[in-house]
């Protein structure tokens, strides 16, 4: 009955079998995993700590990538930026921040959105109408604008941008959760739970919630890539994370300023990193969606 068990029970689950068939999905999963690990282990594997001011010397600034000259794993493998920071290290740490913001905001907005959506769907009536009204109004405005306004007022900050992105994204989860709740609500097991006298709160969390996880995951895989790009864009505009802890977007912004002086590696390389992580997530998400989508099964 509960698909959550099937979704999390790896090997036997049919979706895993089907997922394994596509090379693309596996490549996506592998890419995402690699980048995730790289970000997690950044302090251990980066040749330099780019936040440690003591390690930065201006005479090292604007060095082009040394990748093909020396094969040693040392700072300035991919060049350095205007402050003498090793690009490779900066990218690793930047990746860390980008992923952190992306994951945290996705988690927050998914949790909040699903909660609200299930309540709206299950309770119905005025509560439902009100919540959906608010969601509809918010949806009629582009995400970037809302996030921009929030950050413009609040100022840059790691915590702030996570909140801003969460505020933008909760509606998608809420709408999906509500839709699924509406169809689950009519099913027999909910009826029987109600007949036995189980309280609504318990019904919502113990019975309905596990069964709507699949579409939430589907939405999540779309939104997380979105969240990462949104953070990068805002940081690029100077309205995201503070410049003391640069994310990939901030690095690209820095590089853009000096683009015409010929220091291409400062904007191109972080961008490549950003592109690959998003690509990996999209490949993974695409394949997951195909596998979990009931409408494509005949």
């Amino acid at each position, binding site marked *: 009955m509960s698909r959550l068990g099937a979704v999390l029970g790896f090997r036997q689950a049919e979706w895993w079998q089907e997922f394994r068939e596509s090379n693309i999905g596996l490549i996506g999963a592998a890419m995402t995993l690699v980048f995730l690990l790289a970000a997690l282990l950044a302090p251990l594997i980066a040749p330099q700590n780019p936040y440690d001011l003591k390690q930065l010397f201006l005479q090292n600034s604007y060095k082009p990538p040394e990748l093909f000259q020396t094969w040693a794993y040392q700072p300035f493998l991919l060049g350095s930026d205007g402050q003498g920071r090793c690009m490779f290290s900066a990218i690793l740490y930047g990746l860390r921040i980008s992923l952190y913001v992306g994951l945290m905001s996705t988690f927050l907005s998914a949790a909040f959105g699903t909660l609200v959506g299930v309540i709206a769907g299950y309770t119905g009536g005025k509560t439902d109408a009100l919540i959906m009204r608010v969601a509809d*109004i918010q949806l*009629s*405005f*582009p*995400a*970037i*604008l809302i996030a*921009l*306004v929030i950050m*413009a*007022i609040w100022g840059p900050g790691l915590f702030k941008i996570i909140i801003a992105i969460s505020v933008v994204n909760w509606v998608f989860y809420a709408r999906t959760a509500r839709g699924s709740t509406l169809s689950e609500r009519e099913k027999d097991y909910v009826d029987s739970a109600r007949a036995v006298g189980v309280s609504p709160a318990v019904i919502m969390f113990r019975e309905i919630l596990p069964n709507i996880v699949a579409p939430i995951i589907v939405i999540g895989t779309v939104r997380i*890539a979105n969240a990462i*790009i949104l953070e*990068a*864009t805002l940081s*690029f*505009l*100077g*309205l995201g994370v503070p410049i003391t802890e640069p994310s990939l*977007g901030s690095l*690209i912004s820095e*590089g*853009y300023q000096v*683009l*015409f002086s010929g220091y*291409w590696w400062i*904007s*191109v390389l972080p*961008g490549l990193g*950003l*592109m690959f992580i*998003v*690509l990996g997530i*999209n*490949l993974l998400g*695409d394949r997951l969606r195909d596998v979990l989508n009931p*409408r*494509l099964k*005949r």
Partner: protein
Amino acid sequence: MLGYLIKRILQSVVVVLCVTLVVFLIMYYTGDPVELLLPPDATVQQAEQLRHHLGLDRPFHAQYLTFLRNALRGDLGTSFIFNQPAIQLVVERVPATLELALSAMFLAVLMGIPAGIIAAIRPKAALSKLILSGSLLGISLPVFWLGIMLVMIFSVALGWLPSSGRGETVIVGGLRLGFLTWNGFRHLILPAVTIAIFQLALIIRLVRAGMMEVLLQDFVKFLKAKGLSERRVIFIHALKNILIPVVTIIGLQLGNIIAFAIVTETIFAWPGMGKLVIDSIHNLDRPVVVAYLLIVSLLFVFLNFAVDLVYTFLDPRIRLK
């Protein structure tokens, strides 16, 4: 049908009012204009005087109503930086942003719909796989980074296309347009393509998914059983069926493009609304930011309304209820 229209118009008005309230709230709670206007050595009394003179000591709803009244008259304050009416500054730049947005969307639709159809009807062909991979890449590329890359390749390295500004413009019917001059057109290419790539990828995926779903439906088999050629089934029947959601998304994406133009205009120094608002945010030019928010919100509400209208019109199931 008419009843529905009226209902939608009323809804839109309510949304616009909500937005004005939110914008006003932002204005009210952020920063004290008195502090910005007075020299640092002003006395408390002078501050109080100025406050009273500006009407800042009146109750909240009174200030809001004044704000609303002024807005309806078209008075949204004067820019601190440019010393011109804020609303004029924003409205002047609307044609530039729209030119960019519409060109990008046009490109995306022109190439996206055929590509999506191809990818849907021959899923195993090499071309389809290429299109699909391309679309995946397209939605993974951050728009601003793509812009930078294109500038690097086509402006810096190859020197083929200009990298900033709008070039020559001509005034047609009261609007300042750029694409009608060769110079203006050249300036339009890079920024429009930058935006178009993401939209193109989106449309390809949308059309492909929609097409694949439609082609699995029963009525398609029935159409074939009637002896209709595959071409007719796809390009007349299936296409019309997916047109409805596709047109809806295109309309909504137009709003997104206009918002995202903030980034693209920054990179390409394109003199549109987006660049203006970013500069104004960094320069703390509040009246301009407020004017931008209001005008852009009006634009979105109108766009949503138009999309709803088109949707209702296209789908006979809704039109004739």
